[in-house]
Every structure is written in structure tokens, then in C-alpha cells.
């Protein structure tokens, strides 16, 4: 890992700032969603499922050399796009780094409405799960 967690987050925020229009931001997320690394069908099981109100999210993770790796999928493409952002930022970081993070950057890039707890969507739970996984792996 050459860059720090902070640098990775900054890079995502900068990518997003290229788009002024809301629709363009979503278009970009859709692209990311479509290009997300494939997730094994056999891991789309209930114990990998993070249940949200609307879209479903499946998450798998493993620890290797004290670094956490994530892969995930969703039945909704925009959620997949955000998953792609999250994985890009957090996969391969140490549990300590992740546990200490505030995950505020998703709101910083203006995706707050995908994250509001009242929508109780899979993404909020996914962030919670990533955080818990990191806590437990410390």
C-alpha cells in the first residue's frame, strides 16, 4: 500500500468533485457499479446478507497479513457503485486504521441520502459491518 487511507479518500472526493450535476455523479456511480469485481454467487447466502429496507447487500471479508480485504455485491446498481467506492478505500487497510475511521467521506461526496439511517438501506448496515469486522479483528 503506497498511499494512506486519507489519501485514498481524498482521491475519491476529487473524482467526485469533477461532476457538478447530480445526474452525472450518479452516472459515474452506475459505471463503478457495473465494473465492480464479480462476487461469487455461492457467497450470496443469508450469513453474508446485510438486510436493508430496499436493496440487498452481500459482504465477504478475510484477514491476511493483518490487513482486511472485502468483496461485496448488491441487487441495486447505485448501491454497487458506492460499494465499489468503499471497497476501493477500505480493502487492504489494517483493522486499526478502519476501526479508527469515521466513514464520513461518503457523506462528504454528497451521497448522504443513500446513507441516511431512516432509509435503513443496506449501505448503512454495510458500513456498520465493516466497522465491526475491523473492531473484532484488532
Amino acid at each position, binding site marked *: 500500500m503506497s498511499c494512506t487511507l486519507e489519501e485514498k479518500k481524498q482521491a475519491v472526493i476529487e473524482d467526485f468533485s469533477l461532476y457538478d450535476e447530480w445526474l452525472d455523479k450518479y452516472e459515474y456511480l452506475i459505471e463503478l457499479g457495473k465494473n465492480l469485481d464479480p462476487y461469487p454467487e455461492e457467497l450470496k447466502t443469508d450469513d453474508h446478507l446485510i438486510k436493508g429496507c*430496499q*436493496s440487498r447487500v452481500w459482504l465477504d471479508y478475510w484477514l491476511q497479513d493483518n490487513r482486511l480485504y472485502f468483496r461485496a455485491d448488491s441487487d*441495486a446498481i*447505485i*448501491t454497487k457503485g458506492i460499494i465499489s467506492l468503499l471497497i476501493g478505500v477500505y480493502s487492504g487497510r489494517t483493522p486499526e486504521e478502519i476501526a479508527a475511521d469515521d466513514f464520513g467521506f461518503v457523506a462528504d461526496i454528497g451521497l448522504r441520502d*443513500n446513507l441516511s439511517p431512516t432509509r435503513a438501506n443496506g449501505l448503512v448496515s454495510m458500513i456498520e459491518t465493516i466497522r465491526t469486522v475491523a473492531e473484532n479483528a484488532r
Partner: protein
Amino acid sequence: MNVNDIRIQFPVLGSKAYGKPLVYLDNAATSQRPLPVIEEQARLAKTANANIHRAVHYLADKATDAFESARDYVKEYLNAASREEIVFTSGTTASINLVAFSFGEAFVGEGDEIIVSCAEHHSNIVPWQMLCQRKKAHLKVLDIQENGCLQVENLEKLISQRTKIVAITHISNVLGIVNPVQEIIRICHNHGVPVLVDGAQGIVHSHVDVQSLDCDFYAFSGHKVFAATGTGVLYGKKKWLNAMPPYMGGGEMIETVRFSGTTYAPLPAKFEAGTQNFNVIPTLIPALSFHRACLENMEILDYQKNIREYVYDRLLEDKRITLFGQPESLQDKIPLFSFSVEGVHHEDLALILDKMGIATRSGQMCAEPLMDRLGVTGLLRVSFTWYNTLEEAEYLINSLYRAIEMLS
């Protein structure tokens, strides 16, 4: 009166969402409020804020008058036989819970049965499930046909000696189908079974006359018919309400309180425990009078029919779209459309349409059993009301096509 005369009464309609003109198509969840409603609420807060029924002073009298006038108005509006039959609650959900509890206490015992349909809102399922759990009773479910209409022909078979009540929605909040409640009530009454009608959507799209319907209970929420939130109504026939114990205990619902025993106030106070929502309930008057003016205006009705037909046809002709709720006659369909798009998730569609300025609803719409029955994880819903325009409907369809392109 035309749609523009209506629109100018709704301040929010001129606003923008993400820089685009707001197109509000989530009316089945909550309707926007016209100026007379907003002003009435403000007027009461400014000039008549005092606890009702209890005090003998000028302000309290004003507040009490406003609150009780609302009862008279709703009584007339629903054509109830008497004002004692109108109970104010916080909404449809509260009204149904009240009946499920109090009717259940009085009339439901172990082994008894309650019937609902599979197209009910959770608010007309869960209170009955809770009652069944409490009393060891059974919940039976009336199914729908493939087109979404209730299998009314099977109702008679479902009713047994043990059936204590049938709770059915007037109009489904997912399918937009007007159920033949009159016929359902007739069938149930032939077997001596009372009927609760969930009127949360029914009040919005039909003239409700509880005496001609002959329903035993009718529940609705003011916030779906242009009133403020927290304005629920429960109509109940006096013979039932009198026979039911109170739902909640507290202030106002009592006659005398002694530690040796308490007696309850007469109707409707018996069911209105605690401080009532007195600044807000009176907004039912301007809201319902606005609503009635629209319901009785041919020009407005025709215009809404055009919107309904336009959206219905556009959705049906697109092979990527599956529309749920297609009754034989469009007369039985309100301008509410729930659909799925092949290969596209409803949440994605809702998020993209939102960024185009269009407010829709996506997900299970508080009707998970119905979603299971339809074999979907959720749907996208658009629901129109008096202030929506044909241009908005066209914009919706074009935006929908564009969103589908983006997402496929």
C-alpha cells in the same frame, strides 16, 4: 377551476429539487398542504392554543370549538349517523390499533378468526396479528387474482362461525385498485360479521358515505387528504363503540376516578385519552372542503382521468415494464401505479428520478406480504393527485425512459 387554480394554493409546488422543478408523485404517502390548511394551523397556534374541554376560559373555549367543529365537519363529510361516532386519533394506524385492541377485548376469544386480505398495508395486518397472539385467535387471508383484484368470490368460503371481524382496505396503496367494499360488507353482514374498512387511500379517491356503505368502522389519515399530520379519524358504529372498552386510560376519557374503580366517559371521549392534537385536528376542515371541491368538479375530474389514462397506457405499452394492479375497468383504478422494470432495481430508479426532480416511492410500500405474493422484492410507485399536471406525467414518462437507459 383548473389545475393551475389548484396549484397556486400549494406553496411547495413552485419549489425546486436539485435545481429541477419539483414533481411530487408520492401523494399516496402524504399529500402536500394548501394555504388554507397551513393558515388554519398557524391561526390556531397564534389565537387558540389552550387545552380543550378542561378549562373554563376564553382561549380554551376557542380551542374546544375548533376541535369539536372538526368533529361535526367530519361527521357530515362521512355522513355518519351521529357525531359520537367520530373518534380522533393520530392516523389510520392508530385508528386500526384502537379497534384491534378494544373490539378484540370485547369480542374476540381463543379459536376465533379474523380475516384480512393479502393486499393490506402493514397497518391493517400487524394490529390483528397482535390481537390474534393475545387471544390465541387465527388470522385468515383473502387472496387476490392475477390482475390484483380481490378474490371476493372466495370470501364466503373463508367466513366461518368463528369469524369475528373482516378488515379490508378500500383502495390498495400498492395496486391502486378500488375494492368492492360495498359487496364485501354485504356478504359479511349476511353472516353477521362486522367490517373495518382501511380508508387511508379510499378517502382520497371516492365519496365516502359510511351509512350507505354500512361499514362498521372506517379509518383514515388526514395527512393523505391535504390536512396536517396527526389528524386521524376513526368512524365506528355506535353500537360497537359503546360495547368496546377504552383503548388507553388517562385524562378526558373518564367519568369518575376512584381507587375502588373508574367509570368511563361517554362517546367519543371514551376513546380520546390525554391531551388531543387540538391545533391540528381542525385542519381537517379546510383540507376536506378543498378535497370535496375537487372531487365534485367535472373539469378537475376529467383532467385527472386524462392523466390516469396517459400514464396507464405508457406503462402498459413498454415491454420492459410490468404494471401491478390492472382491473378490468379503469374506473376501478386510481391514478396510482406500482411497477417493476426488467433488470432494473426499483431503488436505483427512485434515486435517479429523484435527481431529475421527481419524488416517487420505492420498496415494499409497507406491504411485504403483498410483495411476496407478487413475487417481487419491491416496486416503484408513482401516485398523482389534484395538483399534478399532464406535463408532469409526460415528464415522468420521459424521465423514466431516460433512467432505464442509464441503468440498463
